[in-house]
């Protein structure tokens, strides 16, 4: 089992490295120019924009490992940003309470989702699809199509936690990834999540408190998405209702590319972050190829299929051994 996990994560790292090397070669500049892709500034940019997906992908990985799915992260990111902006800009709250308000969006949406799934026993797909609509709808209602310009109220050259603002998102992402990697592997709770995802009936029969664990999984997903939303609004400077539209698919794809199986019981948080980076590199490098702009969706789709197919093959081979 450990061997399988190690191989899977190793292969994700290998894919990322292969991708970077490929683009480094393909985009090699003519003599006398700086490399457009392989430079520190570009790397930071990739991290900065991927981290928003990455923070939410950590939550998505946990949900998918538990055998569920969450379609709401994009909408929660938007609403959290809107609520933070609403309090900070329109109601002149201080920054920290505004952030707390934004994070509470994730807690509430997570609680509501878990009520729908655990108590009302709705299928997670349907429940989170509904939550997606509700959250996004509330965001539009609050903003009425306008947006909150958070950057106008932040001091220029503001360094949150003492670091340049562009570093905030990656730092939060890696912190969350580390925390949850530890929780999933070293805490009983994390193992319960794997058990429920692997075989919910057997987990129930083994004495695991299914309801409690499943509820906490969705709350975590909500909180992480709202954390991503708060970070987004601080880094980008705007709280808008149409932010992060469609992010949930990229987030889920990142988790799957990183090793999470949609059937549940398999995956890793670190893998999800690596998956986010794989897509981030793709999104950054493709537009540098003339004419390739329109191919990015196609390539992302092909990449996801290839990786999932390879994953299945690896799984089947190791279970036969």
């Amino acid at each position, binding site marked *: 089992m450990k061997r399988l996990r190690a191989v899977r994560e190793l*292969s994700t790292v290998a894919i990322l490295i292969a991708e970077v090397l490929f683009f480094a070669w*393909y985009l090699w500049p003519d003599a006398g120019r700086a490399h*457009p892709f392989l430079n520190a500034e570009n790397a930071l940019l990739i991290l900065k924009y991927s981290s928003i997906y990455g923070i939410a992908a950590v939550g998505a990985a946990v949900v998918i490992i538990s055998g569920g799915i969450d379609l709401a992260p994009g909408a929660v990111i938007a609403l959290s940003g809107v609520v933070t902006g609403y309090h900070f800009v329109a109601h002149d709250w201080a920054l920290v309470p505004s952030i707390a308000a934004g994070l509470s969006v994730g807690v509430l949406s997570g609680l509501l989702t878990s009520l729908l799934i655990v108590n009302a026993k709705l299928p997670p797909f349907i429940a989170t699809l509904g939550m997606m609509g509700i959250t996004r709808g509330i965001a539009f209602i609050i903003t009425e199509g306008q947006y909150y310009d958070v950057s106008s109220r932040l001091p220029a050259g503001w360094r949150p936690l003492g670091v340049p603002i562009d570093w905030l998102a990656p730092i939060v992402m890696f912190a969350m990834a580390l925390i949850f990697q530890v929780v999933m592997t070293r805490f009983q709770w994390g193992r319960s999540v794997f058990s429920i995802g692997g075989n919910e009936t057997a987990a129930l029969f083994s004495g695991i408190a299914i309801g409690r664990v499943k509820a906490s999984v969705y709350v975590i997903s909500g909180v992480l998405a709202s954390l991503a939303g708060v970070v987004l609004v601080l880094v980008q400077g705007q709280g808008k209702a149409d932010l992060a539209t469609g992010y949930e698919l990229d987030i889920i794809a990142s988790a799957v590319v990183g090793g999470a199986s949609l059937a549940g019981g398999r995956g890793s948080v670190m893998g999800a972050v690596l998956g986010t980076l794989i897509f981030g590199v793709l999104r950054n490098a493709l537009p540098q190829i*003339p004419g390739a702009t329109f191919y990015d969706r196609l390539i992302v789709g092909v990449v996801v299929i290839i990786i999932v197919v390879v994953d299945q093959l690896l799984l089947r081979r190791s279970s036969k051994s």
Partner: protein
Amino acid sequence: MNRARLLIVSLLFAAGCGAGAAGCSIGCPGPPPRTDAATPRKLRFAIIPKALDIPVFNYAKIGADRAAQEYGDVEVLWNAPASADQLKQKEILESYITQRVDGIAISSLNGEFLKDTINRAIDAGIPVTTWDSDAPTSKRIAFYGVDDLASGRIMGEQAIALLNGKGKVALITSLGAANLQNRLAGVKEALAKAPGIEVVETYDIKEDVIRCAEIIASGSRRYPDLAAWISVGGWPVFTRNALASVDPSKTKVISFDTISPALDILREGKVQVLLGQKYFGWGSESVRLLRDIKQGKNPPAAIIDSGVDIVTRDNVDAYEQQWKKMSGQD
């Protein structure tokens, strides 16, 4: 055993990327050849429209590609968010800065929002021009596009002429973009000069063509005696049926943009006046400007008025001929 799996995975991924790269048959020259000092290197210009799904900008791309082909030493990188999203456009702009392109020409979704990023590009030594929609408060070197205020005024004057100075008028716009705001201001300014004209409502259709059709239908029902629709963007004429509910004998239509099928709708009589922008020029002029700047020739003025083409039944055929020539279709 592990190594074999990694090898398989890496090979498969490389194959996938290869397939994707091979798939870019249009304009994808493959990895750029290593050039020596003798061969001049190509200039990489990033041309960024507001979004990939706004049809007017496709002509800008054609113009840019044509200009690049003519010059021979220019490579056009055409990129934008899939649909209008300010943050995504900012992200794309930022990535071209870190990727050290040689020049950027952008039609900003929100000029104020992009101000700081544009300035960063300028400071990093990358020349930036704007087209179609300006970012006037930034350090951009030049803006090529219509004088929106003037164009709006022209539309207003055309309306007054058509209506003989009397009648109810409804306006269509999308809130947010500065250029549309300015056009709207121009229209209102011109209409104010005719006391017999009453603006009953200004509709915001949020850059959504379908919404535009809905609004025209419901607006026509609401104001049965409406004398004219004035649209500062081409939404009513981007599809054939947006104007279906309009009765040309009772209501006149004046719209921006001459992109197909606008000219056909004009011929049918559903719209009377079209204002054409220099669509191909957005692309070709931007490439020329950037190239000149790179060679040390700065433009004479910061604002370059491209001018508008006023198209009516009388000159539509000549206009179409010219169009075909510019898109390389003859």
